[in-house]
């Protein structure tokens, strides 16, 4: 099956000043102190390929390069070397509720969120009732976002991303928030995405979570893919037993 998303020999180095300063005056007046730089190799010759309908997990310690890789795949960051191929529409969720404003109502926030993700106003209007029902805000729909409880905020944010349609999804720990009920809801949503044949790259610090749903897991450490494991997702095993 052809790749829907792939990258070849991706490398990325961050150049950081040994004595960092974000002040122009420091760079002009004490330039000798601030010119010394150190290089941090975030990614080294990373290649991967994602097929249609495949679920790929990225696992590794903090600073391993997971988020940098995801950002490069999404197009948020440029690699120093290597290339990225995107063969379908892509949606990336690195956080819940991006673009939500405390003064806006639920409907306004959903509209703005959808706008940022390239969904037309007409399409937003068409899906609005469905999204608001999914979020289950009840009488609070017309209230400003700042009046919501943490749980309501998460539900609305999750409802917003759950209704964005794309071929490829890049998810960075977005499901690791909220209470048990919310996480169960996220898992149900992920399973439904999988049934619909969406291709996903999922980043998590929890290996059991990845093994539960992903077809393959890549272990990323010090900017390199150290190993790869093909797994039979627990979800598949359970359904096979059933």
């Amino acid at each position, binding site marked *: 099956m052809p790749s829907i998303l792939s990258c070849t020999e991706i490398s990325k180095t961050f150049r950081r000043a040994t004595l960092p300063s974000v*002040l122009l005056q420091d760079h002009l007046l004490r330039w000798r102190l601030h010119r010394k730089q150190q290089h941090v190799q975030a990614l080294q010759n990373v290649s991967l390929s994602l097929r249609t309908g495949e679920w790929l997990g990225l696992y590794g310690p903090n600073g391993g390069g997971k988020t940098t890789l995801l950002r490069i795949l999404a*197009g948020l960051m440029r690699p120093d070397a290597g290339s990225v191929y995107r063969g379908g529409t892509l949606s990336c969720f690195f956080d819940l509720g991006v673009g939500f404003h405390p*003064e806006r109502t639920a409907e306004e926030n959903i509209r*703005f969120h959808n706008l*940022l993700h390239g969904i037309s106003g007409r399409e937003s209007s068409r899906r609005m009732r469905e999204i608001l029902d999914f979020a289950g805000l009840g009488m609070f729909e017309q209230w400003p976002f700042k009046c919501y409880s943490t749980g309501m905020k998460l539900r609305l944010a999750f409802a917003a991303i759950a209704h964005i349609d794309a071929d490829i999804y890049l998810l960075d720990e977005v499901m690791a928030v909220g209470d048990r009920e919310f996480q169960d809801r996220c898992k149900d949503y992920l399973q439904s995405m999988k049934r619909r044949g969406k291709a996903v790259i999922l980043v998590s610090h929890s290996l059991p979570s990845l093994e539960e749903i992903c077809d393959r897991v890549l272990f990323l450490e010090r900017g390199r893919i150290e190993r790869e494991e093909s797994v039979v997702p627990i979800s598949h095993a359970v359904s096979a037993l059933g």
Partner: protein
Amino acid sequence: MLRVVCAIGWADFVLKYRGSVLGYLWSFIAPLMKFLVILFVFQPLVGPAIPQYPLYLFLGLIVWEHFASTTYGCITMLIDKAPIIQKVVFPRVLLIFAVGWTNAIIFLTHVLIFLLFGFLLGVPPSSSLLYFLILLPQMTLLALGVGMALSAYFLKYQDIRHLWEIALQVLFWLTPVAYQYVVQGTVIHELANLFRESLSLSLWGFFQIFVRFQPLSILIHDARRTFLYAQTEGIPSPHHVLGTSAVCALIFLLGFLIFRKRSPYFVEEY
């Protein structure tokens, strides 16, 4: 893309005043206070030499406020919209254009107040108002060009915001907002004279040349002679409009190129 710019710009305009009791009036208090204080101080000094001085000052102030708030908005946009810039893939320059749109809306509300003010002082609206269709794009191109060049380096050098606040204070007094703008001929004619004469490049001379030829001075002067002194000074000639537009477009293009070159590194610089 236009839809995104309009939606973000309008949303920012609405959200700016939502949740505050005074709403839009709150944003108008600062320029109004500035206007009253300058009028109180300068009216006895320069008022007698300038016909319709309150309107002269008001028009200068609203054009100045547009420039100051647009350039400053371009810089702070990178903080206000940080979650979007860091996590959503789309051209960052759209956020700059949204700042331009928000400030254009605010400027148009100020123009309405200017018209009301003018009507009360015996200057009724006329067909010269159409000149705003030329002036507003010129002002926007100039302010966005400067704003983009500044915001392109803001994440790398975060004291640019404070330095620009100081620069704006200096620039305010190097722009003929409150005092008389002395014109001895067309811009081209005066520039040619300057080159013919041997210039004394003292600080004082530099200030004089800067005040006379900086684009914002010219835009403010064009606005005043169109709306207040069309009969005595005449409206700007097509050559003048084209020349001024070309300078504003060039500044915009430079700012755009700098911003486009730097924007791929924004995510790394947060």
